[in-house]
């Protein structure tokens, strides 16, 4: 990896000061651990530095950063933090079983978070953009560059998982 020059530093500063809090929120949402989220935040900006040329050209920087954050968080989870995450997921499952979730959307989001780790990268991205960021299918297509058919397929898969889980506990 090359040395950080002044232009790259300026780019990172600008990106961090504008989007840093959003990235941190996203990492906290995915990791539910403030310390891990801090690590993830650094890692995301490490990637901004690494791909600074690409980042400069990106049309939707927030979507790009969210996607990188998702990848970073799930990489962290799949490495040595998996066990801890699993314990928390078990607690979440218990909460879901015990609670009366009035808001169906909230229920979907919570269930989705449990299964995110089991999805492939594309499905995970679509799931987050759809259920967390509340973006319609066309906007997801615009931001990811994926076809309507691909996004449809992914959303179908997500719905199947969520519905199956809901049926199990209702």
């Amino acid at each position, binding site marked *: 990896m090359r040395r950080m020059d002044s232009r790259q530093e300026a780019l990172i*500063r600008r990106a961090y*000061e504008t989007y840093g809090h959003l990235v941190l929120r996203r990492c906290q949402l995915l990791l539910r651990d403030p310390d891990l989220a801090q690590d993830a935040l*650094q890692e995301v900006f490490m990637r901004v530095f690494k791909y600074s040329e690409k980042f400069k050209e990106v049309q939707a920087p*927030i979507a790009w950063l969210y996607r990188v954050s998702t990848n970073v968080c799930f990489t962290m989870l799949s490495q040595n933090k998996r066990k801890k995450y699993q314990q928390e997921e078990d607690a979440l499952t218990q909460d879901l079983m015990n609670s009366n979730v009035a808001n169906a959307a909230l229920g979907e989001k919570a269930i989705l978070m449990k299964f995110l780790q089991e999805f492939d990268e594309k499905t995970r991205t679509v799931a987050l953009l759809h259920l967390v960021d509340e*973006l319609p299918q066309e906007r997801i297509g615009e931001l990811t560059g994926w076809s309507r058919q691909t996004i449809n397929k992914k959303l179908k898969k997500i719905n199947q998982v969520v519905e199956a889980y809901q049926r199990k506990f209702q």
Partner: protein
Amino acid sequence: MNTQPKDLHPALYDLDCYSVGKCPPVLEADISLHLKTCLECQNYLSELKQSHVAFLQKQPTDRLIQTLRLRKSQTWFNLFNDWFALSNQRLIWATAVVLLITGSIFILRPFSNDNKLEKSAGVRLMGQKQIENSLFRLFLRQGTVIQEISQSPTVKAGDALQINFTVTKPQYVAVFFLDESATINWVIPTTATNHAFLINNDDMLPRHSMVFDQSKTTERLFVIIRDQIFSPIDLSQKIINSWRTSPHKNFNTDDWIPHEPGWWSMVIYKQP
């Protein structure tokens, strides 16, 4: 209290973009309009703005830059570590390379640094000609055997010769080979020049070895050391002229070599 249906709210992603002024222009007007009447979205946006301010206070940019710099500097170290950690096979290869390099250094050591040997051997002049304020020693490597030579050696292709100087005050030096066809191969300086090489101390001398090629022609090694600057080209030309005009034409004898201060010569025989 917000009473609008959920579907009429902007997407949270768009509100995120709006909060940092990066919303697509087509949506910006709609969101601004929506915000005038939607308390829920106003609250969300206000919460985002507060978290933005708190974030910048708690986690200044300088700290991130410092951390990134630190992590970047560790990256090469980690890469190096990872490379070794990857497999035992790589470790074996790395060990082999280290041993090979160490072995090569050990074999070539007498050719690269003879200061210790020089001091223990004491002062000694080579050949019949004494050169003021300096002395030099010749070493010949044949295969893995290295020996100091004091009289004309017989060499073959691949053998290497090194000359080491000890000077008591700054000296100008020229070293070259001359063969019977009056061809010159320059050693010090490495090309034909009008300026001899100045050595202030031993360490300043180029320490490359002279490796012999397949040529079977007998050669003469000339070493010229003077405390005054001289032109190596002029001196070599003088020697060439002397050889060409020599009546006896016996390259192996010294009688054709002009008597000049500060030079020395030795015949190098080639193995048939």
